[in-house]
């Protein structure tokens, strides 16, 4: 799966925020699965044409939001399945967490569309997929999302 991010100077959001939002999108869409390694900070900085500091800041905020975990010297991974589910549910009352809500807000999704995507995301978590079945599972969640919107 390509690690490329699409950053734009025409986008009013600062670069680090564009990185945060796109990585969140990629994780929620299932492109990057739980415990999968993220590109290293240096690698992402080089492939996206931004400074190392900018990527570092984005990773730190993603870690605070609970979407990724960084281990000293070992790089960053997408948060484990059960942790990610907890993170997503931490808002209580079955509401999406700040990270997910924030993602919805930034992506311009209204409540219904966000709910649909969040449900698809949780469905994806319930049924652990083998790597080979990943694309199929993702298409399923995409079509579900499509039907709700």
């Amino acid at each position, binding site marked *: *799966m*390509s*690690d*490329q*991010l*699409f950053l*734009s*100077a*025409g*986008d*009013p959001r600062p670069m680090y925020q564009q990185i945060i939002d*796109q990585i969140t*999108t*990629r994780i929620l*869409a*299932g*492109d*990057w699965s739980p415990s999968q390694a993220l590109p290293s900070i240096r690698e992402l900085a080089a492939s996206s044409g931004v400074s190392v500091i900018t990527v570092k800041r984005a990773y730190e905020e993603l870690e605070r939001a609970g979407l990724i975990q960084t281990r000293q010297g070992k790089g960053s991974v997408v948060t484990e399945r059960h942790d990610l589910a907890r993170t997503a549910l931490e808002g209580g009352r079955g509401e999406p967490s700040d990270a997910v809500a924030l993602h919805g807000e930034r*992506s*311009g*999704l209204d409540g219904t569309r966000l709910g649909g995507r969040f449900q698809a995301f949780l469905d994806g978590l319930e049924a652990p997929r083998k790597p080979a079945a990943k*694309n199929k599972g*993702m*298409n399923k969640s*995409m079509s579900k*999302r*499509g039907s709700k*919107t």
Partner: protein
Amino acid sequence: MTAAFSVHGLCKRYDAFALQDITLELPEGSIMGLVGVNGAGKTTLLRLLTGLAAADAGSVVVHGLRLPEQQVEAKRSIGFASEDMRLYRKMSLDWHMRFIAQIYPTWDADYAAALLRRFDLRSSQAVGEYSHGQRVKALLLLSLARRPRLLLLDEPTTGLDPVARVEVLEALAEVLRDERRSVLFSSHNTHDIEQLADSIAFLHGGRLVAHADKERFFDQWRRLLGLGPVGLKLEGFPEIASIRAAGSQVEIKVRSWQADLPARLSKEGVEVQRIDPMTLEDIFVTSVRAGGQL
């Protein structure tokens, strides 16, 4: 309204390069930015307008005077500055200013003095001792202080430090206080053009691919970010100049934005998340990569 210049069906062929069928007009009192990659034909077009080169076909008219027939008269009102113009290295800028003042009766000594201060140049120094930036500013001063009605500038900001760049851009903007004066300048620095130009002419491979008011470029181009099925291929969207996908994330750049595009894209499974305007640089690079089509 009279045109500062108008060219029609202009062609100029060199061994390895040809400028083809350029038709373009600059209304008096405005600034046009000439954009294009190296070798696109910017300098050739400027040289044809100054009468430094003769066209193989087509017409060049400056302030109503035809080139080359009436070029002696036309050249009085044209100021041209280009990096490859040479100054007399051992002579001072003062000497150069006196020299130009003798040739051109429109020379404005007060304006020259003001530009000297603005550009922070020592006029008694031999120009051979100037830095690159100082030399560029000296050439501009010599053109500007003649107060030509049409200023043609080839890459006036290339190689300047940020402070010198701003000084030059400010000096250019001030030229337009006089509504009879016009400027055509080339640059690869799209930020300069974005900031200063009223209209933009875009050259690619010796052809004029687009010419429009600056605002029209910004109105028409949009960058869309969205989610789409993996392996998405979009056919039947002629307005799309570029599409890139990484996993589910899709980035689409369109050259003629219509409000119904997100709805049409959703039929192809693309969910649009964001719609943002594009910088001129992004517009320029995207169109060059798409084969120069705008």
